[in-house]
């Protein structure tokens, strides 16, 4: 991708990300209406001057609920990715650097975990934990940790054979110091690119879990939960379906655009040959 093609992508992605973060941050401080306040006189109202995005079947203001739901979705996704990194990076780096039976043991368990599509790992864990915010974070972190481990392992494996690592070992540097100073820094780029795509995946899966009713428990607003609540009103109140989905899609678009830009910066193989 040429430099000219890169900038509009970052501009659009950055502007969208800023808008989503700003609206969600504002949602923590104040929303136009109380996001969980029931107002039966104003049930299922289409978008108007009073309610910009309309109201749901309990008369709750959709814009307020979207703003309040945003920070929850974002924080859960961020925490889940952070958890996956904290579990996956050390495991992967140690596996790749140590090699031998340690690597084989970790690799076999990883392959088994990767045999489950990540949303099913999350569903399985949620079935045990029951719906809760912490549960979603834990389930998603566990679902994505294997992917992180795999990428960190591959990177550690390749830097293990490099001369500077040999040099450090010959000079008598202890293994933990070699890992920290020479192996870990080389994981940052590939793991960073993966983390961006995992953030999108985490947001998507959190929405799916909440949509299914096994994610964040109601009445706390979540984008996925709002979509599920709007499902029975399709044809009657389509704004209940359109706006929460739009919020998810625009957030994902922002993450994907910025993630792609990051990947092209960090991974020279993806650049055009000319």
């Amino acid at each position, binding site marked *: 991708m*040429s430099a000219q*093609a890169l900038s509009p992508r970052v501009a659009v992605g950055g502007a969208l990300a800023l808008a989503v973060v700003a609206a969600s941050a504002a949602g923590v401080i104040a929303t136009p209406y109380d996001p969980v306040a029931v107002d039966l006189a104003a049930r299922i109202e289409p978008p108007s001057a009073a309610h910009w995005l309309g109201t749901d079947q309990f008369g709750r203001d959709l814009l307020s609920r979207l703003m309040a739901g945003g920070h929850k979705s974002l924080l859960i996704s961020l925490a889940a990715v952070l958890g996956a990194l904290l579990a996956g990076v050390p495991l992967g780096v140690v596996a790749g650097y140590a090699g031998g039976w340690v690597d084989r043991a970790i690799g*076999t*368990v990883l*392959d*088994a*975990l990767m*045999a*489950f*599509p*990540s*949303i*099913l790992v999350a*569903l*399985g*864990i*949620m*079935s*045990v934990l029951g719906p809760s915010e912490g549960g979603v974070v834990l389930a998603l972190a566990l679902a994505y940790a294997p992917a992180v481990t795999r990428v960190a392992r591959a990177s550690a494996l390749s830097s293990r054979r490099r001369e500077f690592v040999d040099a450090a070992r010959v000079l008598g540097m202890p293994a933990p110091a070699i890992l920290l100073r020479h192996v870990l820094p080389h994981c940052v780029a590939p793991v960073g690119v993966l983390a961006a795509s995992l953030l*999108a995946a985490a947001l*998507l*899966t959190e*929405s*799916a879990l909440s*949509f*299914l*009713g*096994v994610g964040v428990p109601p009445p706390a607003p979540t984008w996925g939960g709002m*979509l599920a609540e*709007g*499902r029975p009103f*399709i*044809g009657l109140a*389509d704004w209940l*379906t*359109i706006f929460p*989905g739009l919020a*998810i*899609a*625009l957030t*994902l*678009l922002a993450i*994907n*655009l910025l993630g*792609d830009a990051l990947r092209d910066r960090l991974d020279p*193989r*993806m650049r*055009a*040959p000319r």
Partner: protein
Amino acid sequence: MIRYALQRLVLAVPTLLIAGLLVFLLIRLVPGDPALLLVGDLGDPAALEQARRDLGLDRPLPEQFLRWLGGVAGGDLGRSVTTGEPVLAMILERFPVSAQVVLAATLLAALVAIPAGTVAAWRQDGPFDHAAVGLAVLGLSVPSFWSGLLILILFGVTLGWLPTIGYVSPAEDLAANLAHIAMPVAALALTEVATLLRMTRAATLEVMRLDYVTHARAKGLSDAAVLSRHVFPNAFGPTLTVLGLILGHLLGGIVVLEKIFGLPGMGRLLVDAIFQRDYPVVQGCLLFIAFVYVGVNLLVDLLYPLFDPRVRP
């Protein structure tokens, strides 16, 4: 070739064993008495004790696992707590519904994405490439459950062309069956087109950079000949692998779409079982999906050498 196939098969065994162990342990992590969970709510302590003995829960954990594994190997996934039906029978009854939607979506996605991705790479940075890449990012950002709902609003409710809920089996009435699955298939395919297009494009770009492609062009072969003879066959391998991995997304996406469109598939079975705390069914569904996923990716590994002679042993 046979050695390669056997090698792959043997490699899948520990994966499936550990997958089985994880599923087995999952239910042991549930707070509370597994006998109560496995048998359902029993007020009678004697019956519960009996159930505990019947289920072997008084035995040590490794022995329990081996007994359970033996059952699984013989096709016994236990019985549903709510209906008492054998879990495997329940799964086999609903799996074809999910499989049909997933297969149709994969086929549709491949038919659109592979040619489009190849052409986009061939005309890199041209208008078609820009449009394809842009649409792919957009497609990746639209969750299949939202596109499913939008398609439902447009074709099901507003235009009234397609039935909005329910399912008819293809054996009963093929036309009605296709009408019922058209919307979930479209929603599922939309996201997968985006993933597959990006992968095909990247794989094609990688191949086009190679010297023999430059050579083929230099010796005056037409674009079509270079593409079909030199680029596509070599770019198809990675695409095929992605097709296998995509199945994971599809199996995940179908869970939500089955709820939206009221399809009686495996995803619905799993979600309903989670709500009813019907753990034998949850266990069975997870294990079954892992088997299917590993099986399909094994198949992809086995097919790979047919398309890419370089990995042929």
